[in-house]
């Protein structure tokens, strides 16, 4: 018996009971679509978070004054200042230390008010701090220029202006810090290319000025945070311990790498959880196939008798029924994979962590950032295409075997 004949007879048998075939296929389709969509969205989310963190780099440690929250002593909240830099720098394996000032500001651009952050940092190390950052227009101001700034793409092209450019290079921007009345004005020397957000920073909505300028204007010796770069990821833990020894509970130490790994642990658990929900759906669909096939075998008892009388072997009869199951699985798997792609993009926006916890992971707090793109790994697609087929064949095995073992004389008498 030829494969083409098996397929043709299988397809005819399925078409003969259209409604049942369609319902069976829908079951499989939904199962495989859900698996694909859920796994692709969560791995997309995970990849988005990872990318976000990688902009800071896994061997960067962020040190912040603990503020009032964690200090147990009578002294008021501890804050980091210039005198902390040498001792952080002297820790073995530390390459560089970068102090940062950061304040929330409301910026007036072209009659609109945009909220952002004024960030004072050594502008020459900006590309090391945020991997992949680049200028769209203009240039970086000199590190000693107290009146110039380089601004994030979202300040120049704010969402409130539907992405139209409101600020150009060599124009001035003025802003107010927090609720203060005094306004600060900078000359825009450069506009950054769209970057998205990095850990603790939404670069697109930042206004970067030199460290000195920030220090003078903010009238404070205290840094918001110090970025400590370690020579290799292997030494991050040791440096972290050294900082802990120096400051105890006076500082909060955050390591991008460890955040990345704990987040990826969480997302992979979510992936497994959601994937198993999809698998359960598929399993239920497989029971549906077994049921449909079983009924089909009973209904077609007489037909099986005829085929056996005409000289079809047991294995050929089994092959016919398994082919029907396999066709159901293939059609369900292919349609389900297609539907899964659509579903994954549709779900993109709803499957995100809230940004309320103090740091932003893209999208959560900013309408300008698109939802995470689902990630469809080849393994996942192969799985959602082949797993339903395997499951359908498995489900059809017993009914098909029963068909092949049928007694001809009894089968021919069956009404």
């Amino acid at each position: 018996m030829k494969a083409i004949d098996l397929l043709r007879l299988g397809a005819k048998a399925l078409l003969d009971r259209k409604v049942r075939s369609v319902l069976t296929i829908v079951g499989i389709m939904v199962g495989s679509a859900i698996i694909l969509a859920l796994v692709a969205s969560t791995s997309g989310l995970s990849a988005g978070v990872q990318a976000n963190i990688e902009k800071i780099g896994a061997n960067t440690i962020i040190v912040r004054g603990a503020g009032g929250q964690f200090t147990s002593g009578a002294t008021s909240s501890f804050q980091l200042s210039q005198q902390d830099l040498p001792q952080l720098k002297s820790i073995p394996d530390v390459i560089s230390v970068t102090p940062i000032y950061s304040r929330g500001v409301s910026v007036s651009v072209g009659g609109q008010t945009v909220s952002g952050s004024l960030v004072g940092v050594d502008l020459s190390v900006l590309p090391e701090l945020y991997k992949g950052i680049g200028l769209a227009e203009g240039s970086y101001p000199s590190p000693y220029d107290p009146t110039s700034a380089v601004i994030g793409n979202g300040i120049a092209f704010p969402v409130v202006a539907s992405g139209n450019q409101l600020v150009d290079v060599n124009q001035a921007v003025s802003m107010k810090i927090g609720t203060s009345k005094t306004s600060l004005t900078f000359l825009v020397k450069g506009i950054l290319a769209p970057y998205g957000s990095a850990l603790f920073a939404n670069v697109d909505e930042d206004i970067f000025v030199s460290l000195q300028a920030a220090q003078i204007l903010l009238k404070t010796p205290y840094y918001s945070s110090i970025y400590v770069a370690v020579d290799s990821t292997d030494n991050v833990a040791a440096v972290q311990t050294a900082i802990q020894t120096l400051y105890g509970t006076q500082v909060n130490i955050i390591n991008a790498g460890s955040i990345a790994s704990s987040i990826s642990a969480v997302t992979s658990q979510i992936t497994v959880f959601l994937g198993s929900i999809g698998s359960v759906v598929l399993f239920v669909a497989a029971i549906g196939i077994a049921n449909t096939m079983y009924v089909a075998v009973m209904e077609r008892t007489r037909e099986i008798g005829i085929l056996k009388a005409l000289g079809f072997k047991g294995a050929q009869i089994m092959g016919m029924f398994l082919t029907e199951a396999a066709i159901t699985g293939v059609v369900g798997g292919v349609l389900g994979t297609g539907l899964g792609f659509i579903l994954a993009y549709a779900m993109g926006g709803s499957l995100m962590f809230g940004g309320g916890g103090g740091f932003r992971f893209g999208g959560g707090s900013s309408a300008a950032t698109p939802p995470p793109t689902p990630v469809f790994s080849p393994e996942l697609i192969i799985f959602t295409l082949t797993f339903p087929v395997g499951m359908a064949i498995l489900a059809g095995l017993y009914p098909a075997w029963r068909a092949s073992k049928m007694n001809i004389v009894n089968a021919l008498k069956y009404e």
Partner: protein
Amino acid sequence: MSRSAPGVQIIDVTKVYRVGHIDYPALRGVSLRIERGELTCIMGPSGSGKSTLLNIIGALDRATSGRVIIGGVDIRKLNEDQLALVRNRQVGFVYQSFNLIQRLTAIENVELPLIARGTPEKVRKDRSLKLLGAVGLASKRNKRPLELSGGEQQRVAIARALVTQPALVIADEPTGNLDSKSTREVLDYVVEVNRTSGTTFVIVTHNQEVAERTHRIISIRDGLIEKEQHLQRIDMYSKPSE
């Protein structure tokens, strides 16, 4: 296999059906020799065991004891796959209820035994169409069984039984569901095939008209052969076979 070897030979065959703990003997020691090219008819009241005998002759069922030799091979020694091969290569079947597959067209039904064999599609179609033509249904080849009359359905079934050029055709009440006109048409065709190609036919029937057209009537009662009646000399190969 020599030409003088019998088409079918069964020696002291019994068949016992067991239902629960009770045995029902359907055949109680039947011996029978059917020559190649013979047109034989089996008659008997219902429950006499005639259909059981027919099924054993056609390798559809296994005897409980005794020997069944089809085309020189004792089929009691064959496994299921080998039996399937015997059915496919050597035996054709015709039933009272036609036993066509409803979702397939006339020609597709005729093709089935060739599909089991793996015959290439072109060859298969040609042969099936030729057979449908021989039973006068070439123009209705794409009709489904329900669109055909009873007589036409039985002619499709006969075409299907003959498409593999079997040595033996068994028929269980082939005219039982047909009117007298269709009965005569079917019968004429069977007699013609028997005469021109030397195909052995074993027909179970209640119909005296059918029985009278055969070479021999075997009467069965209570699982035993009651009597045999030879009606005419086997007129095989009177025309050159195809």
